[in-house]
């Protein structure tokens, strides 16, 4: 299903039909956080709230651990996981910083300096060479 050309882009997960299928319940959990009463219920008992959604144990763990990249690997989509971020009080840029492994300040500085360059970031082979 996944296309090899896209799979070669480092640090990037294409949200295709396959990932969408796997991540359906994870993303629909995130969608439920659009309602303030659901955000409150989730905050009051995270693990209990998650039981409403038939997710895999790995997906549930990734959510509880706030492992943002793992959520994407398991079929999460950024526009959905951002709703969990917002529930935690994270701005988009703070969430992005976490996924890159940089501190918020380092990430903001990188953006102000013009962002991450495409040179060296096109292919997984470039990342392996370090």
């Amino acid at each position, binding site marked *: 299903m996944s296309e090899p050309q896209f799979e070669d*882009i480092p640090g990037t997960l294409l*949200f295709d039909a396959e990932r969408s299928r796997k991540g359906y319940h994870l993303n*629909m959990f995130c969608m439920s956080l659009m309602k303030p009463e659901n955000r409150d219920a989730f905050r009051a008992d995270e693990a209990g709230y998650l039981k409403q959604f038939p997710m895999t144990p790995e997906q549930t763990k990734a959510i509880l651990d706030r492992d943002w990249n793992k959520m994407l690997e398991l079929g999460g989509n*950024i526009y*959905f996981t951002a709703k969990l971020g917002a529930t935690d009080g994270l701005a988009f840029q703070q969430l992005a910083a976490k*996924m890159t*492994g940089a501190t918020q300040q380092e990430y903001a500085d990188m953006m102000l300096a013009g*962002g991450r360059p495409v040179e060296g970031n096109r292919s997984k082979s470039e990342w392996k060479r370090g």
Partner: protein
Amino acid sequence: MAKIVAGVACSHVPAIGAALDNGKTGEPYWQPLFRGFEPSKKYMAELKPDAIILVYNDHASAFSLEIIPTFAIGCAASFPPADEGWGARPVPVVQGHPELAAHIAQSTILDEFDMTIVNKMDVDHGLTVPLSLMYGQPAAWPCPVIPLAVNVVQYPPPTGHRCYMLGKAIRRAIDSYPQPLRVAIMGTGGMSHQISGQRAGLINSKFDNAFLDKLAQDPESAVKIPHIEYVREAGAEAIELVMWLIMRGALDERTKEIYRFYHVPASNTAVGHIILENAA
């Protein structure tokens, strides 16, 4: 008969909306960006279109994963701003143009585009931020707006070529509408940005500026850019740029460039903006 009077493209970064809504436009971080849109506000105030067709994407606000329409046209009388998880933006309710929208839907479907018709829809930052950039903070938006939502969330979005052809079909719909309306079309999203994964923060201003050039002067070559190129060269979410090609398709092949602006960064994103008119 109705006619297209302008094509406008611009980014729709949510942080721009937040900066406006929270009175931060004068801060050093935001000042250069908002200054770049001053000429555009003046232009729109003088242009006074009777209606705007606004091409954008929903970000898991109106559409979750339950329904994922590739092209959805808003035919309702009004569209409330969406609560995206932190309360709705304090912007006016968007008034639609149900008669023109229904005409466009009918005309494009008979033109072989399988549009989804939406009669109830909240609109998120993807639609309201471009309006804020063009009009500032009015008590009411100055003209009706027809939302045209494109799926760019789940791969694959429509191809650039398909988007361009839809733009041409929209143009035929406008040209055949019996009322003498002056219509502007906007394509939004982009430019280079990636907001997910370890490669987040990618910006490619060379790609972006080349895209602006192609859009203005050589749309046929912009139309041929494959999805992989947007994603690899300009970031996962740069694929939103296909929506600009719907706007471009609605214009003549030859256009006159009225204004252009480019700025890095707004949060995670390169902000691009261009105003085109049909060449006389």
